[in-house]
């Protein structure tokens, strides 16, 4: 096996509101009980992971105007869950996804600094931008921001939060602040002293050029979807090259794709389990749903075991709201048709193949090797592992893969310091009073 001099970073994603999470399995538990969060966070900490990650959604998804009912629905509010988890964990970082469109800098900076104090320096913030007015209907700010404005607001939001985190001098004296920019005009005194990490860790997730630029300028970590070696390498090179423009070094930003995994005693075992899991993830109903999301049409009468629909997608229609759309529907349909013809697949089989999400499948040894290679090839600095089961989905990885990574010197054998910044190998930000 190749060895790497660059140890990888690992984070745990709480399985939730997506079609990766299998809720029909006998071992699937609650996605809302605190015990589920406690189990997964403690498991990740036992595995010496850098951080535990919670996603956010501020409106339940709808499909054809009705609430989507096939996937896990419902989740508690991130920062509150993480504050409680700070009580039952000791070292692992605690990362909350919180939108910049539907929040205000003073309040969110205060909540994040609070989490950093309550956890002894383990807080992180995934600063996402909302895609739609649909979500806005739950907020008085409401409405829609186009992509350019979302990111200028996000960038100013993060910069403002940093100004607030810097208002107390390191020796604990509060000083007034005033920020008057394009999106925010605020002044006063921040009520929380500089937190243990100086600034909580900032994560970015979002793939457009604007998103990458925002990450290069302001983020400590990028959470990406580029989980294959090829697209990972391209993404990695692209984003790291953008850093210089902002006077930043290549290792001031950690790139971590969200990836899934399936383990088995042997590679063949794992492949078999992976196929079973895919069948659970893509039920006949979910196959039709996936179809309707691309086609934009009502295909409820379509046979999931038959061929793809003969009709073309309606590129103007959007069946599902509250979900980030990926790619052009006509192109996607053409790709799926080609795949289906080439391999002679039914609708459901096509969806299974085309939306495949299992990044690492194999014996613990195989998976450990692939992870190490991935990092050695500069396709990532580490991974956000997305298990498909709540809350036990990480147990096997921690028990069987982590020790192999440690044997190879590819992952830590103990936490080096108390803060998330120290796990990530990131310096505490210089105080800019």
């Amino acid at each position, binding site marked *: 096996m190749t060895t790497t001099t660059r140890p990888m970073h690992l984070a745990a994603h709480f399985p939730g509101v997506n079609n990766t999470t299998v809720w029909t399995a006998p071992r699937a538990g609650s996605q809302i009980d605190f015990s589920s969060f406690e189990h997964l966070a403690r498991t990740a900490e036992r595995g010496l992971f850098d951080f535990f990650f919670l996603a956010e959604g501020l409106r339940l998804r709808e499909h054809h105007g009705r609430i989507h009912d096939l996937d896990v629905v419902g989740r508690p509010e991130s920062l509150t869950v993480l504050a409680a988890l700070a009580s039952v964990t000791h070292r692992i970082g605690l990362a909350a996804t919180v939108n910049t469109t539907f929040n205000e800098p003073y309040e969110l900076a*205060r909540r994040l600094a609070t989490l950093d104090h309550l956890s002894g320096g383990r807080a992180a913030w995934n600063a996402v931008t909302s895609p739609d007015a649909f979500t806005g*209907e739950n907020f008085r700010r409401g409405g829609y921001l186009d992509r350019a404005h979302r990111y200028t607001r996000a960038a100013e939001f993060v910069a403002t939060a940093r100004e607030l985190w810097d208002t107390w001098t390191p020796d604990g004296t509060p000083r007034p602040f005033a920020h008057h920019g394009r999106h925010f005009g605020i002044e006063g005194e921040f009520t929380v002293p500089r937190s243990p990490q100086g600034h909580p860790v900032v994560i970015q997730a979002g793939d457009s050029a604007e998103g990458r630029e925002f990450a290069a300028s302001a983020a400590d970590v990028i959470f990406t979807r580029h989980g294959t070696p090829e697209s990972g390498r391209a993404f990695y090179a692209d984003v790291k090259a953008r850093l210089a423009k902002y006077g930043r070094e290549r290792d001031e930003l950690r790139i971590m794709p969200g990836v899934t995994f399936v383990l088995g005693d042997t590679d063949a075992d794992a492949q078999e389990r992976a196929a079973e899991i895919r069948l659970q993830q893509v039920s006949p*109903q979910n196959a039709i749903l996936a179809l309707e999301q691309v086609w934009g049409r009502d295909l409820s009468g379509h046979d999931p075991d038959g061929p793809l629909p003969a009709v073309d997608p309606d590129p103007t229609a959007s069946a599902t709201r509250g979900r980030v759309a990926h790619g052009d529907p006509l192109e996607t349909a053409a790709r799926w048709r080609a795949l289906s013809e080439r391999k002679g697949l039914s609708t459901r089989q096509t969806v299974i193949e085309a939306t495949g999400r299992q990044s690492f499948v194999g014996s613990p040894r195989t998976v450990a090797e692939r992870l190490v290679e991935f990092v050695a090839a500069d396709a990532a600095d580490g991974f956000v592992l997305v298990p498909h089961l709540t809350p036990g989905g990480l147990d096997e990885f921690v028990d069987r893969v982590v020790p192999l990574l440690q044997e190879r010197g590819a992952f830590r054998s103990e936490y080096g310091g108390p803060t998330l910044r120290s796990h990530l190998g990131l310096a505490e930000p210089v105080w800019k009073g």
Partner: protein
Amino acid sequence: MSATAPLHLAAEIGGPPRYDPAHYIDLARLAERGALDFVTLGDSFLRPGLDALAVLARVAPATHRIGLVPTVTTTHTEPFHVSSAVATLDWVSRGRAGWYVDVSTTGAEARLFGRRPAAPADELWQEAGEVADASARLWDSWEDDAEIRDAATGRFVDRDKLHHIDFEGAFFSVRGPAIVPRPPQGHPVVVVDGTGGPAARVAARHADVVLVRATAPERAAALRAELRRRAAAHGRDPRALRVLLALTVDLGDIETAPEPGLESGPPLSAGGSYYRGGPVDLAELITRWHRGGAVDGFHLTPITPGRDLERIVNGTVALLQHRGLFRTFHPGGTLREHLGLARPANRYAQERGRA
């Protein structure tokens, strides 16, 4: 009201700002040992200190029975976020959450947000009432049995049991449903300081627990009667309202001669009532007021939490327990159970039932 009605006790654990969670955990555990109904943690965007709801979320797994009631203001925070955070506190504490509703009246607070100028208290409390209303609807927007996990049909939820609330108020609108499933208590306990004015209107309509300030039992009894009358006018069961006397206590001077009874002290809080003396005399005062049927209990704000709460629990409460006036343990698990309040029915399930 009969003299045997259960006595309810609560304490504020805020004080000079502290940034270490251990301090708050120690105080909450102390209050829990005294079998108090709940602790509150005051908050505002101006006062140095941590976000109160997060602090009590941090306290939740370190305690087992005590109710946890942070102040969450409604003037500058999105109603949808308020309802989600409070519901989540109820989830992480397994049914022990409350919400102390307050507003932000100052220009200094408004400038921290830069979204709107300061507004008169009347308007802010009207808005707070709307936030409480929208929150309760959001908490109901998931029926308790909405999650079905029906593998046969592939459905995780029964979407007929999830509801858009379509709330349209004078200040904001919210479409819903909530992203957080209905919390363990159905509705976390709503606490309002409602001695008078616009806050009293909100209290009568939306609060489960109302704090009142009074310096004589007759005055407190009159306030309670008025709150109950107004609650009934809103179609509520007036008995489902707990009225607690808000009392600031200074137990630091027990070496000097006690000053029994309630005195009108320095204006620590507008129109506030203030007690200075020893823990035994405080127990006397509580006994007298409660026996007389003036209030359902007391919300005590120690001048110095670290010192006074210990004296309240080991002195005052111990004596009340010895006299059989206050319970020695929490018989139930949720804050509603401590307060003797029923779990609210779900309005949408009821509507469906009638339809």
